[in-house]
């Protein structure tokens, strides 16, 4: 498919997600608790876009590979080692902001 408004439904039904290293894509999959394989294409990506993918990989939340190692990775990966990625907490921001502006 070309451009859907939302991949939420597809994500919900998926058992495994293979994605590029875009932050939105990664975070959407992780939040739904799906095992995620991130394919990094160094030629296409800005350096900064890799920061999140690298960090997620370092912290054990995703499997990483590049285009040429994808097949081999899919064959040999162990998804059970992936750590869950807890959701962010906007409540903390709300509490902080309330103090800043004086609503307490």
């Amino acid at each position: 498919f070309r451009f859907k408004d939302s991949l939420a439904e597809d994500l919900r039904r998926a058992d495994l997600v293979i994605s590029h290293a875009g932050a939105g894509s990664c975070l959407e999959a992780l939040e739904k608790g799906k095992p995620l394989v991130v394919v990094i294409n160094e030629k296409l990506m800005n350096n900064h876009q890799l920061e999140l993918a690298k960090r997620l990989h370092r912290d054990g939340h995703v499997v990483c590979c590049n285009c040429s190692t994808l097949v081999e990775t899919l064959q040999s990966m162990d998804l059970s080692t992936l750590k869950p990625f807890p959701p962010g907490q906007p409540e903390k921001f709300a509490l902080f902001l309330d103090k800043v502006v004086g609503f307490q």
Partner: protein
Amino acid sequence: TGGHTTEILRLLSCLSESYSPRHYIFADSDKMSEAKIRSFEQKRAETFSNSQFTLDRIPRSREVRQSWTSSVVTTLYSILYALPLTYRLKPDLILCNGPGTCVPVCISALLLGLLGIKRAIIVYVESICRVETLSLSGKILYYFSDYFIVQWPDLKEKYPKSVYLGRIV
């Protein structure tokens, strides 16, 4: 734009009714943010009866990887739009999270503050994508915002005046 809008709407998700009216400012070239914002506000109106919001567009300050010198020109052009808009809205609080659009708005707010017309509190939240380095908007606004929030500990170390609350989106 895109990811920034999604992030900022998440930041807004737990704010109380007191944060009203909400004025959204985004780039004229942005096709998707309006729909996301309307959808968010519609949902919000189901819980909070007094939901007021407005939408305004200003020229996009900078394209991805646009050169330095031309960025200054396009940003100045955006300020020509942002300044009367900010003057009209006279916000008490400006919340931004990194798209180029936030720079002209914040500069306008700072100018209005310097001129004694309206002093806004500027809160900047760097994107969750920024783990080790700041965005260009972040590098600028680190010095001009009242509160600068980062979402990863490495950034807190590099930018000690920043606030670290953990991941908030």
